[in-house]
């Protein structure tokens, strides 16, 4: 009678036990007081904390390799920053705002008369959301297809093999794994003195979700994120001012000549730039947000007012709440998880990939690492060439580069040849009436091996793939120049720049 009253099947938090360990002979005690040292549930081969680009790619690759894998993601949708609030939604807005801007300003000379053109920001945001949800659901499908267990919740290390997960839908669970990948990504670095509310003081997350076009926008930081989002809102009608501490836009990787030209082209589109300028303080207590600036090397103060301030001074690794202290894992002075050449932390079965560790914070770098880290696990060897990772800025015109820039080569005392070709001399660019920009090659003076390729111009982001392949395989500029490129295409400008590097371009 006692038994029928008691809920015998009620799951109870028990110590980890295995079937082979002691079981009380009394039937009533069985499954209740067993003690042991291994988990009753089977350990996973791999658990990945973070379902962003690094994490989900690693999860799919692991599933394809036959590993028993689970991926923990707390956002509620897969894809991380890139798919949800980064690369993908921003590209949707960049593409559609460019179309809007082009229809407004660049149709008459193409023989197209348009009537009243209006912006419907709500629908533009819906189009962005549709792209995002389609892609994130696509990853969920790929998880199912490749037998990846998707755990929606916040994971934290309990010990070196156990992750405690706070489930989104309520409740808690634990997963044990032989191997663990930390792929928790990064977050926008806040600006001291300004409180991010994602409405008036925004990061890139708020910049893809503004409800109306601000009259005035200040972008703190002239890197890729700042310029892309500044471009979007400038095209939609905002007066955008970019404040950059360094002497050039685009960040340190962009070639100085390309950065200068890009700044000129973006200025033509209405964006304003204040370079060599530091923001000393910000005030968001009144109706307008004001920031105080002065010359980077010291000088006269200036106060700038705006409806919206975009803080785009960089990103920092995200390890909050991960419980690294519980397992004694340390981060470096910039919050990155320390790893070796096989992505192992000091605890060899725990690896780290993507933004949360070393290297550029780029989605395609994270993808490469996701595949490589799984291959280290399954095959013992993996491959990521950190010297051949392209960077792309999706403004119009696009800017893309791979390898080293002139400044870096000079600093390394490398003798090099330069060859460039302007899109204004390219037939396809001419027919497209889109001729701004150039392709620039840097190759070793002695061997002609390509050391860097820098492009500003239409379709630069697609074109850089050829340059990355060339650098990956150690090609010379002559190799590119002697490879047939279809006519008439923009890629002919790429070939001609290669020709100009080892000899002379034909059409310029």
């Amino acid at each position, binding site marked *: 009678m006692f038994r029928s009253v008691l809920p015998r099947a009620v799951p109870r938090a028990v110590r980890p036990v295995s079937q082979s360990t002691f079981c009380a002979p009394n039937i009533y005690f069985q499954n209740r007081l067993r003690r042991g040292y291994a988990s009753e549930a089977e350990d996973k081969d791999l658990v990945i904390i973070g379902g962003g680009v690094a994490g989900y790619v690693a999860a799919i690759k692991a599933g394809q390799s036959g590993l028993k894998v689970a991926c923990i993601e707390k956002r509620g949708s897969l894809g991380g920053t890139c798919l949800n609030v980064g690369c993908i939604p921003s590209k949707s807005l960049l593409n559609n705002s460019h179309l809007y801007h082009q229809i407004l300003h660049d149709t008459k000379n193409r023989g197209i008369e348009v009537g009243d053109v209006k912006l419907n920001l709500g629908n533009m945001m819906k189009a962005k959301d549709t792209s995002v949800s389609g892609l994130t659901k696509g990853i969920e499908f790929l998880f199912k297809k490749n037998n990846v267990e998707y755990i929606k919740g916040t994971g934290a290390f309990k010990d*070196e093999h156990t992750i405690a997960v706070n489930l989104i839908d309520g409740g808690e669970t634990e997963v044990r794994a032989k191997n663990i990948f930390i792929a928790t990504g990064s977050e926008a670095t806040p600006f001291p003195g300004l409180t991010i509310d994602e409405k008036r003081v925004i990061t890139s997350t708020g910049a893809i979700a503004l409800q109306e076009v601000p009259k005035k926008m200040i972008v703190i930081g002239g890197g890729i994120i700042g310029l892309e989002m500044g471009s979007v809102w400038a095209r939609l009608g905002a007066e955008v001012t970019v404040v950059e501490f360094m002497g050039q836009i685009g960040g340190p990787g962009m070639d100085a000549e390309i950065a200068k030209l890009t700044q000129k082209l973006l200025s033509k589109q209405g964006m304003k730039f204040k370079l060599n300028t530091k923001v000393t303080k910000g005030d968001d207590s009144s109706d307008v947000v004001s920031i105080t600036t002065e010359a980077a090397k010291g000088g006269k103060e200036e106060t700038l007012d705006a409806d919206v301030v975009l803080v785009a001074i960089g990103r920092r690794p995200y390890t909050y709440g991960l419980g690294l202290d519980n397992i004694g894992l340390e981060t470096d002075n910039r919050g990155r998880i320390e790893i070796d050449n096989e992505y192992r932390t000091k605890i060899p079965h725990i690896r780290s990939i993507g933004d949360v560790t070393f290297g550029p914070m780029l989605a395609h770098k994270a993808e490469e690492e996701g595949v490589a880290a799984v291959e280290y696990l399954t095959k013992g060897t993996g491959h990521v060439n950190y010297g051949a990772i392209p960077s792309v800025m999706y403004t119009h015109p696009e800017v893309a580069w791979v390898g080293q820039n002139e400044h870096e080569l000079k600093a390394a005392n490398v003798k090099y040849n330069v060859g460039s070709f302007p899109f204004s001399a390219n037939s396809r660019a001419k027919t497209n009436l889109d001729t701004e920009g150039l392709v620039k090659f840097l190759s070793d003076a002695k061997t002609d091996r390509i050391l860097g390729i820098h492009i500003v111009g239409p379709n630069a982001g697609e074109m850089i793939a050829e340059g990355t392949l060339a650098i990956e395989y150690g090609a010379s500029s002559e190799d590119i120049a002697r490879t047939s490129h279809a006519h008439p295409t923009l890629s002919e400008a790429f070939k001609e720049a290669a020709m100009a590097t080892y000899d002379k371009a034909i059409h310029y």
Partner: protein
Amino acid sequence: MNATKALLQGRQPMIRFLGKRTTPATIDHTPHAHPASPTHSLPESFASYRQKAQQHGPLNQYSTGHVGSRPGASLGPIEAGKGNFFDRSELPRRFQRLAWTQAEIEAVESGGASQFA
């Protein structure tokens, strides 16, 4: 075809077909600094953790790197060598004895009734 042949006599492209990729027979798995590491060195903790973890186990005795490609027995004995003694408390926490909780003791003593009181 002939024109290409003639051209290649004077110029050898730097891109060449290297053959199908294969996994190397031997791979050095000793930890080295990550290529993108700003310091180009590993923190001291990497070596110290491994030294500690290796004391009673086969850590770092990699062969192929395949998960489960070798039986655990082939990794060698995990017992301490002759003349070496260690306490269970020196092992990683998962191997250590679990402490009895008061609730468990009461459950044993009361025949389980305490759990449903």
